[in-house]
Every structure is written in structure tokens, then in C-alpha cells.
């Protein structure tokens, strides 16, 4: 019986948010932004330098060496013979060529629009070096091809103690994206819980609601309802991200991927329960929307700082002591533990410890936050001090009688 009101409240919160234009538009905007971001990343990544180079005169001899040198510089090179220097320079000016190589093969003259592309320059240097070397070797009766063959056979054989993870990049990306989505979702939906609490206080409807249900039921219903909205958005955004990454071939579905998704969901639920309760308790201290920011700022800034520090630690060294400790501390575990799990750097013992600590911490926050909420939610007027809110019997302003 006592759960039906909780579900009713959760349903109302869910429906009033999801039906609102703000949710649909907001989700679409974030989707578009994420899509644009992914597109930019994709073009940056796929932009593995293509170049067209014209050769003319004796430098035509560079054609072969240029084509052989280009792959080592990450350059896809097209070498085009040009009839003469004038035609070649005209093509460079017109943008058809990135550079024109003319003159002596060992000391060619390179004509470019402004500055030569770094990779292209290195390619040309490598080509001229090869030409000079080959000429020198040939002059001393050594077959350059035989030398190349001998050099190609040399090189170390690397034996790694652990097999290299072919999906390390994918894991890092997934972990960071997960941490970011969790942070984003917890911050925005937590703030929504606070706003909802203040709205109920400001409109005084809370007294009618609390004459029907207990404060903990109202609090729980709100957290569940908005948590579900946040989860829905997380699934939509995460799903879209995965679909795009999958389509782009950046992502390979495997057991690791599934377990990462599951851990992100579990940690989201825990993290949301934790932060939403804090936000609700903070929101219950004030009576007007204008004051909401003043009580939320300390919480959001704390989380933001932790997030920025942790995010950097995560990209810098995911196995480091600092991020390990941070990911074990309950207020930050939900943000970073899933990322470390995704990266495969969190031992099972640490995961279990973080999980237990977070559950214990959340239970404490729920008890304390629920008390602050119950003590403050009916009090209007001046901001409620934390000491009063925590008291067993909070004094109420005399005018409230």
C-alpha cells in the first residue's frame, strides 16, 4: 500500500517531464551536438593526409622514392608528372597540386602555395635522401636493393607479458563517454529534482500532497520518476552514440562492451539516488526558484571539480593511485568506477569495495537527506539553516501557525 503513492508520484514526475517540450527538444539538441562532435572527430581522424604532388624535369626520377616514402609518413600521395615548371606552378596556384617538385632529384626545387605540409615535407626529404643514398651506394658498387632487403630482415622481436588489448582505444573512449554521460545526467537531472522540490514548495501544493503521503514517499517518488527520465535520456543518447560508433566501425560489439553498458547503468542508478537525494534536500531548504541556485552551487561545484580532476587523471593514467582513490570514494565512484571498469584497470576487489562503500554512503545520504527534506519542505519564508533542518524538531516560524 505504501508503494502505490511512490509509483503514482514517480509516474507524474516522469510524465510531466517526458511530455514536456523541454525534454524532447533538449534530447534532440544533445543528439545533434553529439552527432556533430562525432562527425568532426571522424573527419579529423580520417584526415590521414592526402596530397597531390607534381614532378617535372629531372625530378621525375623522384616518383618512385616519393611513393615509397609516403606511407611511412601517414600520407596518401599521388604523384603527377607535369610537362614543365610553368604548368606545374599554375596547377599549384589553382589548388590542383599541393606541391611541384622540379630540378635536380637530389636537391629539387619545391614550389608550394605557402608552407609545405609537414608530412609532405618529410616525405620529400625521405625521397631525396633515398635518391642521394642510392646514388652514393651505386657509385661504390653496392646494390641499394640488396641493402634494403638486408635492413628489412633486421629488427627486434617484442614479447609482451600480457597480450596487448586490441580494443584499448575503444575501451578508453567508452569509459570516458560513460563518465561524461553519467556526470551530465546526474548533474542535470539532480538539479531537476531540486527544482521540482522548490516548485512544490513555492506553489504550496506540497501541503496537500503531504497530507496524503509521507515525506519519504514524496522524495522517493520524485527521485525514481526523474531518475527514470534521466535513464531514458541516457539510453537514447548512449544508444545513439553506440549506433553511430558501430556504424563508423569504431566500435566492436563483444562481451566487454555489454558488461561496460551494464556497469554504466548500475552505477548511474546508484549515483543518481545519491546525488538526487542531496539535491532534493538542498532544494527543500529554500522556498523560491530564485534561491535554488544558491543552495545547489556548492554541490554542483564540488561534483564538477571532482569530475574535471578525475577525468584528467583517467586520461593521463587510469592505473594511478590518485584516480584509484578517487574512484573508491563514494561521491565520485559512480562517475569514475564505470570508466575504470571499461578500461579494464579496476580489480574486482576495488569494484566490490567501491560498490559497498557507495551503497552505504547512499543509505546514509538518504536517511540524512530525507530528514532534512521532511523538516524543511513545509517551511516557507527565509532559507532554512542546516542546523534547524537536521534537528529532530525544527522550530517553525511563528507566523506559520
Amino acid at each position, binding site marked *: 500500500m*505504501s508503494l502505490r503513492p511512490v509509483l503514482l508520484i514517480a509516474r507524474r514526475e516522469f510524465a510531466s517531464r517526458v511530455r514536456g517540450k523541454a525534454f524532447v527538444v533538449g534530447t534532440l539538441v544533445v543528439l545533434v551536438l553529439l552527432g556533430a562532435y562525432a562527425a568532426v572527430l571522424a573527419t579529423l581522424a580520417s584526415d590521414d593526409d592526402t596530397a597531390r604532388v607534381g614532378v617535372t624535369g629531372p625530378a621525375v626520377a623522384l616518383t618512385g622514392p616519393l611513393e615509397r616514402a609516403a606511407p611511412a609518413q601517414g600520407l596518401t600521395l599521388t604523384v603527377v608528372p607535369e610537362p614543365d615548371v610553368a604548368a606545374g606552378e599554375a596547377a599549384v596556384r589553382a589548388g590542383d597540386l599541393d606541391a611541384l617538385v622540379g630540378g635536380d632529384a637530389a636537391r629539387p626545387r619545391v614550389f608550394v602555395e605557402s608552407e609545405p605540409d609537414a608530412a609532405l615535407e618529410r616525405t620529400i626529404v625521405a625521397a631525396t635522401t633515398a635518391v642521394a643514398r642510392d646514388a652514393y651506394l651505386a657509385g661504390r658498387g653496392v646494390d641499394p636493393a640488396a641493402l634494403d632487403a638486408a635492413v628489412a630482415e633486421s629488427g627486434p622481436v617484442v614479447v609482451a607479458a600480457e597480450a596487448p588489448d586490441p580494443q584499448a582505444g575503444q575501451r578508453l573512449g567508452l569509459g570516458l563517454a560513460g563518465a561524461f554521460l553519467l556526470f551530465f545526467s546526474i548533474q542535470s537531472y539532480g538539479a531537476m529534482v531540486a527544482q521540482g522540490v522548490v516548485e512544490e514548495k513555492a506553489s504550496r501544493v506540497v501541503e496537500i500532497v503531504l*497530507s496524503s503521503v509521507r515525506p519519504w514517499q514524496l522524495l522517493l517518488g520524485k527521485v525514481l520518476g526523474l531518475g527514470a527520465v534521466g535513464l531514458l535520456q541516457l539510453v537514447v543518447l548512449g544508444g545513439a552514440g553506440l549506433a553511430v560508433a558501430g556504424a563508423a566501425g569504431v566500435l566492436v560489439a563483444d562481451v566487454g562492451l555489454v558488461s561496460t553498458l551494464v556497469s554504466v547503468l548500475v552505477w548511474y542508478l546508484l549515483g543518481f539516488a545519491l546525488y538526487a537525494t542531496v539535491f532534493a534536500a538542498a532544494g527543500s531548504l529554500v522556498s523560491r526558484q530564485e534561491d535554488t541556485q544558491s543552495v545547489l552551487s556548492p554541490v554542483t561545484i564540488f561534483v564538477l571539480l571532482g569530475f574535471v580532476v578525475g577525468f584528467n587523471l583517467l586520461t593521463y593514467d587510469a592505473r594511478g593511485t590518485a584516480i584509484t582513490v578517487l574512484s573508491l570514494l563514494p561521491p565520485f565512484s559512480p562517475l569514475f568506477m564505470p570508466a575504470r571498469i571499461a578500461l579494464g584497470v579496476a580489480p574486482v576487489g576495488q569494484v566490490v569495495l567501491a560498490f559497498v562503500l557507495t551503497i552505504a554512503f547512499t543509505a546514509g545520504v538518504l536517511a540524512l537527506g530525507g530528514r532534512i527534506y521532511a523538516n524543511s519542505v513545509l517551511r516557507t519564508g527565509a532559507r532554512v539553516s542546516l542546523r534547524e533542518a537536521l534537528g529532530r524538531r525544527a522550530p517553525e*516560524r511563528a507566523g506559520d501557525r
Partner: protein
Amino acid sequence: MLEIDGISKRFGSTVALDGMSLTVRPGELYGFVGANGAGKTTTMRIALGVLAADAGEVRLGGRPLDAASRRRIGYMPEERGLYPRMAVGTQLRYLAELRGRSAAQAREAADRWTERLELAERRGDEVQRLSLGNQQRVQLAAALVAEPDVLVLDEPFSGLDPMAVDVMSEVLRERRDAGAPVVFSSHQLELVERLCDRVGIVRAGRLVAEGAVAELRDASAAEVVVDAPHAPPGWADAVPGVARARAAEGGTVLTLTDASETTLGAVLDAARRTGPVHEFRRRRPTLAEIYRDAVAEEAAA
């Protein structure tokens, strides 16, 4: 039967309620009057479980109120409030379901009360788009939509237009006639006098007078109005049983120590000795006067 038994409540150093007790019987319309800050709202909030009492108990039908039985109380808080962005119909159904009604019952009741309160065309509108008067009607519907067995209404008449006052009075009588205990607070004493079966006067957190309006009148100080045109000033001062005399209501109003035949006879005789007597009647105070006396006596004590 709604029993409020000896509840006390302090807010810091302020005593809001000091042993407040009152009983509202089934089929009784109970008026709760008192100055601002006397403790009416606190009493109602405690009855609804919105506040916790420091001492005392609230019982419904002889059993202490719990969460389940509180849902059977229709409540209109002094601080009006509804979800501003929720549609009227949806909101009423939601509030009914929160009080334990099924979805079908809630829908039926929301439709019926919006019809009754002439809000049917506004069902789909957000509450914030309604006029203040119509928002008040929605507030009343919110108190009634869960088909409560008991009504506790804090200042239900404040801010209502005359039409809405009539509808509200009608609804209160109807619930009373259906056997529900109904209690409401109000500063409009004539309205309380007209509507209520019993009245409780509260001052500084306690009930200082309680009873049917007629009982309260009889219990208050006996007064007579005497119109004797030729009587000189101070004619009644020496009459045994006369405590106080003042010129008012077109004659002399005498406050008597008792309303016995002897005293009344002595006063009438004294009046006749001054000449013709045009009027001689027992004066019954209005509720407003009883209220003022009750509050003043306490203040003096």
C-alpha cells in the same frame, strides 16, 4: 467522530498549542474561530499529519489517526496551492489517486466535481491559466475529489466570490447531512453563525469556549435592553443584580449578575417607576460579541 485530544506544539520558544482539545461529531458542522496566530492552522496541520504534535493525540472513530485513515480526510490548507502547470482534470485525478482511490474512481469523481463546480470546460487547462476564483474552486474540488469521510478546511471561504460562497456552503451542508464530521476555520463570524452546528473559540493555543451558538449565547452574561424614555441617567445603578449599565440600542443595556426571575423582576419594577416602558427584552449576543468577550476575558485573566 474526529477527536483532537490535548495536543500541544511549540515552535522554538513560541507555544503554538497548549492542550488543544475538541470533538467534531458525525453529521456536525463545526466552526473554528480565533485570531490570527491563535493556533487554528497548527491544529489542522497536526490533524492531517503535516506537522507532528509534541503531545496529545488525534483520533478518528476512536482510533489514533494513521497514514491510511488520514487519507480519508479532505483537506484544504490555508496556504492554497496546486501544481501550476498541471491540467485541472489530471491534477484532480492525481490527488484522488494519491489518497488511495482507484484510477476509475478518481476519473469519475474529478469529472463530477468539475461539473458541479462549473469547471467542466476548463478540465484540460493548466491551473495557472485559470482565474484566481476558479483556482479556488479547483482547490475545493481537490479537497473533495477523494470522497473524504471527514472534511478539515482552513479558511475555505476566504477569497471566494459570493456565488462560490453559496456553492461552498451547500457542499459543506451536504457532507454534514451525509454524516461526515466537517470542521472549518473562518474569520467570517456571521457565516459561521449561520452555518455551524457548533463553534469553538480558540485563543493562544487553547479552546476557550465551545458549544452550539445558542448555548454559547445562553451561557454568556445575561443582558437586557430597557427603553424607558423618562428614566434619568443612572436609574438602574442601585437595582440589585445589575452589574453594569450602558446606553445603547435605543435604550439602556444592563448587564445582570444572573438571569433569575427575581433579578429580571426587580429591573422591570425599577424601570416602571421612572415612567412608561416601551421595550424590555432579553438581549442575546451575536457570535462576534461572544467571540470578543471570550478573547477579552482570557486576555484580562
